[in-house]
């Protein structure tokens, strides 16, 4: 082991740079080996180099640390790591004393396993839920008729074809803007975020579909990436998420305004069926016409009935009055003295008027029903 001896300057203790670095390095080596989690970036492997280097990045905090590993060991793991992958590195802190570079000396590397992913996902889900990113109040209604539809999808994915076919079948005049991105792998998350942003900046984009067909748990991971989930939650344009199959629930599904179980379902959600729409309009117009006509008919009938009654009313009134007058006339007829005369009676008057007693020789006027005459009383009985 190299020496860490101070130089003597009277009462000061001074170390050379090499001795300082060695000293710190030796002290660091006493720290235990630990597991460190992060994202692989700037992976550098060279046949001439004894070690493989990469930077391990903390995607949440942005912190990073250099990692080195013996090339033989690294190759022996057969991990075939790529930039952007999440890993667990087992190692100890080390100071490269020649340069004073602090780094993590890796003894082993494990790719993030399903269990680790699940745990990380659960942590992220809890954190984002606590922030309210999945809250029901954040969900917006989709427009009935979007002027333009954004579609973020893989470049030749069946999901893309399903969404496009469904939209174009249901609503042929639909205007669709497609943004193709990686939908799996370490670069997917950043690309998806960029694609969403780009679509939001396009004029008249009223809704965006984020579509990806089914895939393995790892394949769907970018759609649970914190960056993607945040971009979906804060998108100024409503987003329909159609990622994976029914049973998959990537976090972007929770953050989206609407979750579609399949890409086809997403297509059905963003546009109405034109034929159905036209039919509905036609039916509405028909029933509108029918209702107006029915109301009109009813009103006409009512007016006609009223008119009929109006017309009959005066005649009825006259009839009633006539009946009354005729009844009175009938009574008048039976009560008239003339009627009595017609039954054979006679009215006898003298110069004082009607008489009920006469004397012999008296002159009287006799009135009959049809005529009258003068007479002289011959005898009284």
């Amino acid at each position: 082991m190299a020496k860490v001896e101070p130089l003597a300057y009277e009462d000061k203790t001074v170390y050379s740079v090499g001795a300082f670095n060695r000293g710190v390095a030796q002290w660091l080596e006493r720290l235990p080996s630990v597991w460190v989690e992060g994202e692989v970036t700037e992976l550098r492997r060279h046949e001439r180099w004894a070690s493989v280097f990469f930077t391990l990045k903390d995607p949440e905090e942005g912190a990073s640390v250099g990692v080195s590993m013996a090339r033989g060991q690294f190759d022996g793991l057969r991990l075939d790591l790529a930039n952007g992958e999440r890993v667990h590195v087992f190692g100890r802190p080390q100071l490269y004393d020649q340069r004073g570079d602090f780094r993590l000396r890796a003894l082993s590397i494990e790719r993030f396993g399903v269990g680790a992913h699940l745990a990380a996902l659960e942590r992220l889900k809890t954190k984002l839920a606590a922030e309210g990113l999945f809250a029901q109040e954040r969900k917006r209604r989709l427009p009935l008729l979007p002027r333009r539809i954004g579609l973020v999808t893989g470049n030749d994915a069946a999901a893309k074809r399903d969404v496009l076919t469904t939209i174009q079948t249901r609503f042929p005049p639909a205007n669709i803007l497609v943004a193709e991105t990686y939908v799996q792998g370490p670069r997917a998350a950043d690309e998806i975020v960029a694609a969403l942003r780009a679509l939001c900046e396009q004029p008249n984009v009223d809704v965006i579909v984020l579509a990806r067909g089914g895939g393995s748990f790892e394949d769907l991971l970018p759609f649970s990436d914190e960056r993607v989930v945040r971009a979906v939650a804060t998108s100024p344009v409503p987003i329909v998420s159609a990622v994976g199959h029914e049973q998959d629930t990537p976090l972007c599904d929770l953050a989206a305004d609407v979750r579609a179980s399949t890409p086809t379902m997403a297509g059905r959600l963003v546009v109405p069926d034109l034929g159905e729409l036209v039919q509905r309009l036609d039916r509405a117009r028909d029933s509108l016409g029918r209702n107006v006509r029915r109301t009109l008919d009813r009103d006409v009938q009512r007016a006609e009935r009223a008119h009929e009654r109006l017309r009959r009313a005066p005649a009825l009134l006259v009839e009633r009055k006539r009946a009354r007058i005729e009844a009175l006339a009938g009574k008048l007829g039976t009560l008239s003295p003339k009627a009595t005369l017609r039954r054979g009676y006679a009215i006898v008057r003298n110069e004082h008027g009607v008489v009920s007693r006469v004397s012999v020789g008296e002159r009287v006027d006799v009135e009959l029903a049809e005529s009258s005459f003068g007479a002289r009383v011959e005898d009284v009985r």
Partner: protein
Amino acid sequence: MTEPTFEQAQQELEQIVERLEHGQAPLDEALALWERGEALYAACRAKLDAAQGKIEELARRVEETRP
């Protein structure tokens, strides 16, 4: 003296019939009442006939102007 309205004539006619029905009027008065009653009846009839004529005339005009 102005001509009585239909209602006035009818009312008077009713009163006359009522008095004749009670049979208490002396014969001469009864005769006079009866004559008056007949006149009133004729007046009422004339007014009703005129009204009916007018109604029929109006109804015919309405019928003609119907679309």
